[in-house]
């Protein structure tokens, strides 16, 4: 039986007169690798923050891991991991201290957290840097530590908001390697937002957002066929008519 990991109905958010997200209907299946594409300001991050209970919706409803994002915020937050666009690590603390801090925030007992932190540090190649302040780490290492922080509590759904923004190609590749391993090992549901369209190729399904509206939804193959396009990038351009933007989107 497959249940929906994420089920949004008519979900929308306004910032005063600005309609950041119109009315989004979206279903992400359990274990799915789902890509959310869109130009800057399309509403990708807004969607993620609504689903992660960091924003209150202006209209519509959403259930994440079977819980309502408005009424059961705590339960939703317990089941999800979220890696933000910008790092959330404390730069003055060491890598290990950051992970210990996160473990306490998620109420993991020390005897559970300690081996898990060790395993994650090994998996993310941060073992030698564990006692270095985060501020001394490279961008790629910081990102790796961010993701380790995001999965420390073993969430069933992981949100990755522009995880590779600002990383060099090598760091990007190793990051995708790790995420692939993670999914293979745990059956984790992953919702990815990105404006590097080619990164969404391995996704099971992809949604294209434009101006707060769903412009297209399907498997990469379906979308390419429907648009008569050879690559996801052409699909993206066909649906949004935008130039690919340089910086991160809201």
């Amino acid at each position, binding site marked *: 039986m497959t249940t929906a990991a994420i089920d949004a109905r008519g979900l929308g958010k306004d910032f005063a007169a600005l309609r950041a997200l119109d009315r989004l209907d979206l279903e992400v299946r359990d274990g799915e690798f789902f890509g959310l594409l869109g130009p*800057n300001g399309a509403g990708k991050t807004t969607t993620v923050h609504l689903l*992660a209970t960091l924003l209150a919706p202006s209209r519509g409803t959403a259930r994440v891991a079977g819980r309502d994002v408005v009424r059961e915020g*705590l339960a939703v*937050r317990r089941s999800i991991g979220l890696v933000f666009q910008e*790092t959330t690590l404390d730069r*003055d603390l060491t890598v290990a201290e950051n992970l*210990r*801090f996160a473990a306490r*925030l998620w109420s993991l007992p020390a005897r559970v957290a300690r081996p898990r932190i060790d395993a994650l540090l090994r998996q993310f190649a941060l073992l030698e840097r564990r006692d270095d302040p985060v501020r001394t780490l490279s961008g790629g290492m910081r990102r790796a530590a961010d993701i380790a922080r995001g999965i420390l509590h073993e969430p069933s759904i992981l949100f990755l908001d522009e995880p590779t923004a600002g990383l060099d190609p090598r760091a990007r590749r190793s990051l995708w390697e790790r995420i692939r391993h993670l999914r293979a090992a745990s059956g984790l549901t992953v919702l990815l937002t990105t404006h590097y369209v080619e990164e969404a190729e391995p996704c099971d399904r992809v949604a294209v957002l434009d101006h707060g509206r769903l412009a297209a939804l399907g498997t990469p193959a379906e979308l390419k066929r429907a648009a008569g396009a050879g690559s996801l990038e052409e699909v993206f351009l066909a649906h949004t008519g935008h130039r690919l933007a340089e910086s991160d989107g*809201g």
Partner: protein
Amino acid sequence: MRAVYGIVAREFVRFLRQRGRVLASIGRPFVWLVFAGAGFAAVFAGRNEIDYRVYMAPGLLGMVVMFGSLLAALSTVTDREAGVLRMVLVAPIRRRTIAFGKALGATLLGTAQAIVVAAILLPFVHLRPTLAGALLGLIAVVLSGLAMGALGLVLAASIRSIENFAGVMNFVVFPMLFLSGALYPVRHLGPVLRAATYVNPLAYGVDLLKHALLGGWARAGYGGELPVPLDCAALALFAIVGLAVAAPLLGREGGVTRTAFRERR
């Protein structure tokens, strides 16, 4: 609760790692004692009921708590700018637990600083509190720390960046200090300023500290003036109201904001 412990522990680790902040918090009251103390002592000269430096001691301890706890709670602004606040907000913790954890961390930091300063300052001015006085002093310090921590959280939620810090110092910290009775008795002030002392949490904290430390000079008019239970109740009220106001404001800080769109579109 483990999350509260985590938040408090982080405050302490950060504080102890900032050498300058540690030295400033210990050194600040002695700078005041030497410079403000010398000046005021000269003005007060001829009034032999109390040595001005003794009179200053409770106020200086109140000042240590104010700076210690208020600055610690104001670090929420840097947490927000650095993104750390988001890590906390996406954790499965209630907003009021976060606010409480932050305020508790600020309280314990302020209290620890006050204890260290008291251990040096009180012998220095030859003030030996009774055991009851010391206990009441500790209560005063903890309650003041909670009130200051809560106030700091409210301020942190309402100032957008650390650059507005000077404004906080000028319009909150200094008025609070001068209207607290830390440096001179406030009962001689005009009606408007006197009224202001009643909405000043530090005034209750310093009054409580005077009860604790200047009991021997009460008859000469230098002890605490308000009833002890009133001081305690006022500080507790400031703490509760502050936390109740700060908690939902903190929760607001997690998601993208309108500004993000304005910048990026």
